[in-house]
């Protein structure tokens, strides 16, 4: 292995390595020794190492963005198969990876801190923190990947840690089922990813991002000509490769129709949902498309169209479902899916645009702001769930007096996600809609409708939790002594406040200066005339939600009755799960699984069993020969000798 190519003075890259390795260190220590650590010290260890990583990430970001660097990387060969043929590992710093570095470490730190209070007294406290460390390590490795293979390795590691954390409460059957579902669905999507990696690396001759992008986005390069020439079903190899890679991204990012695992993943502890299933892991798909954006835009606009439409459909689809769900975490899950759809179509609408960086910057901006307010929403939901010991909206209501801080921060997050100025979500959503309106009017309108629905369902949640009747708090003092009377401890409150401030302020970051697809600086502006329509629709959504859910009334039922079967279909998540079950149970299992099982049982097993049984029967029949009677042995011996002699005589003479 050759040494890592960084000079000792290059603090940027050294820090980047440290950021990745700190959570790994915390995972290893807690994984091996966590059970023996007293009290909540294991949590503190994880939190402190994450705080260090977050601090380093901030210094990296500061250094990177103020010195006008655009691309720094460092790598070493990790698996060397032969001379010149090796798989590298390393870190790559460019605007999006640095931005992700900040987001991941920051949200992870908030979740670590919050969990000190939220998970207090859990039996597997240290295991929980070990898993968090593993996840953070994997996610950081993913965003800093220098090549497709490294991203794939960390991609799977992220999947595993997500699996572990969803199944954290492994004594619940539903959590186990959800963990398996998440793993299998994303794994299925990753099959596409893997094939896509093979196609892309085959056509470009490299796995390295920088070389691959420069090869495949340069119209004069030979690699691109080969890739564009080879076609399958009338689609070029390059487009196939990118579509397959996007399939992996869509699986991780819960895009329609691979979204079915995300709502179920809410079985995990709530801070985990905030970290993994809202802010970081699920945006890995967006990150992946952004990473390969140069190839998408220059060489495969058709693939980018697919990204755009997948995103737009997921976005609207999830928003409709979110309006009907009653489990607050599931509402947030569908909301996450909807917002990620937003990011996806923001990337996608760059297809055929002469200013592709608009969509690119908007998507990453939304990724950034969404991480803040969605994490805040989940952490707030965690507070609410601890207070009422239920996920169901019907068990809540009137909590604004009991949970004043949660109430305020939740309201800020709701305003942010609904796109009300001057909260963060407004700016990023505007940027996305702006980009969409330039090239894809249909998607723009879908985005507008989604924005209105978003405002409606978020405020349905807000009013349903904090208004709507009297508080129905549980007062069982015996087993929840530390969080039934008040709002949880300082560890839980601090992240709420910090994230609320981030949700207010993040929108004012001049994001276009930092993150663009071509390295130039983009001036982002908000156009009042343009903003009137989405904002006023959001306000209408909020007012409607206030009218329906602020006080108890029969209006929601009447509304549901008005939409009739459409409401029922949305409440049943448009039967997508049932479709999957139908396809797997009725078609895959019955037409492929059952015959395969028959072949396995009767032919493969049958052959082996026949061998076994015949050996047994044979042994049974000759075991009588071993009688222990010396004379029968001698008789056989003599007979055998005579036969041999007879044969001998017959064949020799």
């Amino acid at each position: 292995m050759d040494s890592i190519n960084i000079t000792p003075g290059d603090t940027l890259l050294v820090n980047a390595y440290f950021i990745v390795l700190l959570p790994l260190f915390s995972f290893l220590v807690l994984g091996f020794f966590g059970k023996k650590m007293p009290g909540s010290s294991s949590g503190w260890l994880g939190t402190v190492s994450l705080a260090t990583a977050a601090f380093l990430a901030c210094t990296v970001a500061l250094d990177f963005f103020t010195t006008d660097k655009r691309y720094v990387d460092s790598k070493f060969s990790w698996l060397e198969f032969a001379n010149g043929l090796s798989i590298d590992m390393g870190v790559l710093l460019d605007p999006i990876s640095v931005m992700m570095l900040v987001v991941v470490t920051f949200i992870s730190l908030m979740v670590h801190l919050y969990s000190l209070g939220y998970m207090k007294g859990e039996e597997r406290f240290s295991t929980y923190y070990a898993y968090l460390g593993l996840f953070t390590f994997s996610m950081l490795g993913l965003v800093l990947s220098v090549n497709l293979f490294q991203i794939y390795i960390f991609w799977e590691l992220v999947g595993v840690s997500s699996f572990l954390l969803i199944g954290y409460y492994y004594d619940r059957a539903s959590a186990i089922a959800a963990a398996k579902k998440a793993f299998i669905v994303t794994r299925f999507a990753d099959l596409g990813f893997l094939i896509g990696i093979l196609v892309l690396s085959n056509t470009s001759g490299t796995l390295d991002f920088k070389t691959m992008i420069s090869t495949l986005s340069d119209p004069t390069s030979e690699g691109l000509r080969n890739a564009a020439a080879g076609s399958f079903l009338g689609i070029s190899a390059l487009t196939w490769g990118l579509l397959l890679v996007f399939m992996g991204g869509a699986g991780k990012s819960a895009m329609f129709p691979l979204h079915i695992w995300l709502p179920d993943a809410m079985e995990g502890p709530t801070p985990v949902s905030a970290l993994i299933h809202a802010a970081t892991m699920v945006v890995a798909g967006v990150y992946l498309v952004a990473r390969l954006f140069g190839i998408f835009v220059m060489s495969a606009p058709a693939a980018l169209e697919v990204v755009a439409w997948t995103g737009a459909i997921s976005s609207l689809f999830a928003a409709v479902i979110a309006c009907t769900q009653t489990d607050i975490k599931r509402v947030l899950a569908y909301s996450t899916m909807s917002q990620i759809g937003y990011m996806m179509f923001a990337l996608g609408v760059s297809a055929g645009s002469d200013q592709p960086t608009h969509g690119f910057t908007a998507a990453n901006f939304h990724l950034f702001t969404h991480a803040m307010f969605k994490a805040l929403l989940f952490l707030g939901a965690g507070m609410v769930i601890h207070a009422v010991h239920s996920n169901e909206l019907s068990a809540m209501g009137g909590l604004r007096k009991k949970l004043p801080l949660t109430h305020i921060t939740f309201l800020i997050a709701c305003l942010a996600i609904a796109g009300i100025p001057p909260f963060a979500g407004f700016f990023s959503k505007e940027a996305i809609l702006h980009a969409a309106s330039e090239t894809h009017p249909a998607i723009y309108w879908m985005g507008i409708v989604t924005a209105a629905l978003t405002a409606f369902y978020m405020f349905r949640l807000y009013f349903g939790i904090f208004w709507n009747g009297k508080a129905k708090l549980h007062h069982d003092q015996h087993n929840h002594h530390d969080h039934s009377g008040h709002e949880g401890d300082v560890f839980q409150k601090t992240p709420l406040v910090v994230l609320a401030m981030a949700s207010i302020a993040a929108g004012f970051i001049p994001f276009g200066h930092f993150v663009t697809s071509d390295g130039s600086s983009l001036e982002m502006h908000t156009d009042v005339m343009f903003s009137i329509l989405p904002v006023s629709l959001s306000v209408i959504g909020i007012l409607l939600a206030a009218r329906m859910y602020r006080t108890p009334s029969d209006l929601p039922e009447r509304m549901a009755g008005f939409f009739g079967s459409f409401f029922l279909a949305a409440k049943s998540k448009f039967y997508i799960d049932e479709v999957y079950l139908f396809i797997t149970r009725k078609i895959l299992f019955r037409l492929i699984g059952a015959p395969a099982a028959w072949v396995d049982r009767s032919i493969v097993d049958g052959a082996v069993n026949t061998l076994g049984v015949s050996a047994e029967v044979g042994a049974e029949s000759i075991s009588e020969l071993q009688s222990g009677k010396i004379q029968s042995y001698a008789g056989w011996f003599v007979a055998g000798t005579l036969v041999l002699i007879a044969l001998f005589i017959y064949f020799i003479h």
Partner: protein
Amino acid sequence: MNEVPLNHFLIVSTALFFIGVFGFLSRRNLVTILMSVELILNSVNINFIAFNEYLWPGKMDGLYFTLFIIAIAAAEAAVAIAIIIHLYRHYRSIDAEDTDTLRF
């Protein structure tokens, strides 16, 4: 010289051998079986002596083998008798049919 030809010796020894084999297979008494074994060994001895005398008259190898076999047979008989006595003490019988525990 009206010597006895080699074939006569061989006929005697073959007869002796098969008498021994027959006795070994058909008798039930362990002592008789032991005697049959001695018959088989002695038929071999006769063969050795006869071949030595008729085919390699100047050599002594056959005689040595024969002496060797007689010695071994004596030792074997001693061991076998000891085993038979023990079997008798154990089973109160020296019938070969009754001693089938060696198969385990």
